[in-house]
């Protein structure tokens, strides 16, 4: 009796704690081995309270209602909008989903988006309110909200406390009773779906699969249906909660396989695995190549770290099929890489892992989206870097990516949310009241408008109650221009940006005034200009320095002054030359730092 399920929850709503309780109740992990957030393996996952890689665990459970033994496969899904595709594959591996909502906070946009995704996948939904032990819990109110959203009765919403364990055994029983058993044909050609794939330095790539039809056994040859590549099955097994080899996996089972490949690209999420000797003719469908949505340049602060950065990216890539990068050089920042990411969180995570696991200090340029530019001669350019924007040629049309965004917030903030979306070139598509006091707003927004500080703005305008989710929704034509920033007439590539025509002036003035305070005075006057092509739209001026000398230098001052000088000389080495202008590295970092903060930077309590 197999039951495959996942937990859909917002960050902070207690998903990992619930998983921890289940591991304990089912006896898979004993009290001695237990640690908090057992399934989150990476430090970064534990610290940020997010799941980046899907995990799964097999747990035995005897239903206390029927006395029947069940095998429960819980698949812990990534929890962020950047990883929607991975979420969708995890969902596709399940028949049911536990919709876990904080009884003190109610449902959030991202949870709602994943719920819709689960409903599209025909998953059976078990609504659960967590944290009922909190004094601030309002189970009545949020049960009614959940009932309204999924169309059930408020009484059917289970109430648990993952922290104390209250109600968790009842939830396990409910999973056995309500979630349908997997359906598949044991005799058909074997097919399994890959819902995650991770790289392990000792074992190579470990691929997580859900078997749909047939049976997979050790040592047989398997085929990846998207590429046709075949591999030998070195090991196959289940995770409970550590990997345990078995003599195979059959219909409905969830587990892992190892083939010895070294790169997750050879074992891609969403792909269908089949038996190379007896291949299925049709894949399970739903496979998609990961497509970078956001690009940014990553540069080592110390130029000599460039080879280290290259090696580090090569290593991360083994475990991250969505990460793309190619070398680029910037006059201002030296040698680095243009990297493509699924979204801002993905960017942040990659950057943080590079800095933390590989001990690198990095500068990242302002993130940008991918533009398609048509010239008047009908030729097309794909621009992933403002430096590639066609210059000196007649541009006919520019297309930018847009997203469908969903915002959930208390209804008292509707006005200020609308104002924000309006200012970000959004179009309102609809608005629904989830309950009397909470509203869901649906917008179409240019992706470029939300990758900077949109989420920060949303949070501050809604006193932290607003939540956001979005998905790619094609592209639209837009009036976009490239704004260059020039120091003494020399463009600084790292500061060029593609912005909407109406925002060019704002970007230009804010950047020039920021730089005026960040760049030290030089031996000569330095004009800072913002320009669209040859048209200057903003200008500031750094006056020439007039005094840089210590008045006194007598016996006791000499040692002190020499040490100061040596420090200044070190500082000078970290200067980058833009034309004749010396710009301290710190100025680049400060000018490029935005108050970007993604949803996931909130830490789990």
């Amino acid at each position, binding site marked *: 009796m197999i039951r495959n399920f996942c937990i859909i929850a917002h960050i902070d709503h207690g998903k990992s704690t619930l998983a921890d309780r289940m591991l304990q109740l089912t006896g898979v992990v004993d009290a001695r081995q237990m640690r908090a957030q057992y399934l989150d393996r990476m430090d970064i996952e534990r610290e940020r309270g997010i799941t980046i890689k899907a995990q799964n665990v097999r747990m035995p459970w005897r239903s206390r209602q029927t006395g029947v033994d069940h095998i429960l496969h819980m698949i812990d899904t990534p929890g962020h909008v950047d990883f929607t595709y991975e979420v969708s594959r995890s969902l596709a591996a399940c028949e049911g989903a536990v919709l876990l909502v904080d009884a003190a906070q109610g449902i959030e946009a991202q949870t709602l988006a994943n719920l819709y995704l689960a409903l599209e996948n025909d998953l059976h939904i078990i609504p659960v309110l967590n944290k009922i032990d909190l004094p601030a819990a309002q189970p009545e109110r949020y049960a009614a909200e959940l009932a309204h959203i999924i169309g059930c009765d408020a009484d059917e919403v289970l109430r648990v406390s993952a922290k104390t364990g209250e109600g968790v055994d009842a939830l396990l029983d409910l999973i056995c009773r309500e979630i349908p058993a997997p359906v598949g044909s044991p005799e058909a050609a074997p097919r399994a779906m890959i819902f995650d794939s991770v790289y392990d330095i000792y074992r190579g790539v470990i691929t997580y699969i859900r078997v749909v039809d047939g049976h997979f056994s050790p040592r047989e040859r398997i085929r990846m249906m998207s590429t046709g590549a075949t591999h030998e099955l070195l090991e196959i097994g289940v995770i409970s909660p550590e990997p345990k080899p078995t003599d195979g996996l059959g219909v409905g089972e969830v587990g892992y396989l190892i083939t010895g490949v070294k790169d997750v690209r050879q074992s891609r999420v969403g792909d269908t695995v089949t038996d190379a000797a007896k291949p299925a003719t049709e894949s399970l469908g739903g496979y998609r190549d990961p497509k970078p949505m956001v690009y940014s340049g990553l540069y080592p602060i110390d130029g000599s770290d460039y080879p280290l950065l290259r090696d580090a990216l090569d290593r991360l890539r083994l475990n991250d099929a969505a990460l793309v990068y190619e070398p680029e050089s910037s006059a201002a920042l030296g040698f680095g890489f243009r990297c493509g990411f699924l979204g801002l969180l993905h960017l942040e995570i990659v950057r943080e892992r590079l800095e933390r696991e590989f001990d690198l200090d990095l500068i990242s340029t302002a993130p940008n989206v991918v533009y398609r530019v048509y010239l008047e001669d009908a030729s097309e350019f794909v621009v992933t870097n403002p430096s590639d924007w066609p210059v000196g040629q007649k541009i006919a049309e520019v297309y930018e990516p847009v997203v469908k965004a969903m915002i959930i917030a208390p209804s008292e903030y509707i006005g200020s949310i609308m104002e924000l979306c309006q200012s970000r070139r959004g179009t309102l598509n609809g608005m629904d009241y989830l309950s009397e006091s909470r509203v869901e707003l649906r917008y179409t927004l240019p992706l470029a408008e939300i990758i900077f500080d949109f989420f920060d703005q949303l949070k501050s305008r809604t006193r932290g109650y607003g939540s956001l989710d979005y998905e790619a929704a094609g592209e639209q034509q837009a009036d976009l221009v490239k704004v260059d920033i020039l120091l003494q007439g020399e463009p600084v590539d790292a500061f060029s940006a593609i912005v909407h025509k109406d925002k060019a002036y704002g970007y230009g003035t804010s950047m020039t005034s920021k730089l005026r305070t960040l760049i030290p005075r030089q*031996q*000569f006057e330095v004009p800072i200009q913002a320009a669209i092509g040859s048209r200057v739209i903003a200008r500031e001026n750094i*006056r020439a*320095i*007039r*005094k*840089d*000398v*210590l*008045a*006194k*230098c*007598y*016996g*006791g001052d*000499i*040692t*002190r*002054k*020499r*040490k100061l*000088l*040596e420090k*200044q*000389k070190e500082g*000078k080495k970290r200067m980058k030359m833009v034309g004749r202008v010396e710009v301290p590295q710190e100025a680049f970092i400060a000018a490029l730092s935005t108050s970007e903060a993604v949803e996931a930077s909130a830490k789990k309590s």
Partner: protein
Amino acid sequence: MPSALPTGEPAPADGRLPGAALYAAYDVPFGVYVHIPFCEARCGYCDFNTYTATELGPSVSRGSFADTALLELRLAREVLRQAQQPATTVFFGGGTPTILPAEHLGLIVREIGELFGLTPDAEITTEANPESVTPAYLDRLRAAGFTRISIGMQSAVPRVLEVLDRRHRPGRPEHVVADAHAAGFEHVNLDLIYGAPYESEADWQASLDAALDAGPDHISAYALVVEQGTALARQVAAGVVPAPDDDVLADRYVQADETLQAAGFEWYEVSNWARSTGARCRHNELYWRDASWWGIGPGAHSHVGGVRWWNVKHPARYAAALEAGRSPAAGREVLDARAKLTEKVMLGVRMRDGLALTDVPEPGRGRVGDLAGWGLVDPRALDAGRVSLTQRGRLLADAVVRELLTGT
């Protein structure tokens, strides 16, 4: 609060110097600096190592300071041994040296003469507080062998003196100059400070004019520096008084340079002007020319043959070390070739005679063209093979040094 000492390696208890340093100091001009760490009151901008009677308490007596200083002189004589030579200069600074009886200062001068010898043309200077120096005191200084006096005038404008916490009456320094001349001092310096909060261009001009009218043959003019830990720094941090503005300081410097030049003074170091070559302060030139000097007194710095060291700062600890037969040095550093080069460029460039192009390391020599182009070094001096600063270059001397040391 006095400023902090540098960090260095520990100094040996007996004060011994490496043989190499003694060898290097052989034949190099030698001077003695004597630090008198006492003041009647502390000025708000001052971070020198000095103490009022209340700050010191009963443990340190001004009266016995000279005796303690003699102990250090004898230690110096012993350490220097065969490298010792007659002193070409002696300089008493502080603090307020003239807080001590002139005979005490004279005792120290005499001891220097006996231990090391003094060259026939030795320059013997003391700093003096305008309020405490009388004609009789000046006569006694002359009798003790002093040849030069440096008077802390700072400003001629009452409100500026008040901001600086200076207690002397306006006009008083000018009187002292006259008295010093009458007592037979050939060389008289006035110290000025510009850029104090609320000082106007006219105020500064009044100070310069007053100083020139008094007739000294040397004037030092220093930009006010807000030193960490001073009362002034606290006032600036609290927003009570405005911080000096670099552009204003630059204007004041230009004003001083023009005024002094018009009056027949010539700059010979960034902050020092003299009426003739003979009026230059030869003791200060020792510092800038990498010569040797022994600094006597609490917190005093010394340099002999590429070793720099500094004494403990507190007068009580200073005296205790010497009385126990130990060196009062708190720490020292032995300069390596790179540090020596840095110092040579850093100090040399501040002087009118400048630096020989051949003393500038190779990569920095390539920067000289830009420096001339920016108007920082004198192109005619370059033709003569020397790096010498223009007026604008003096204001940007530190930037010039960094360029000249490019790649080192």
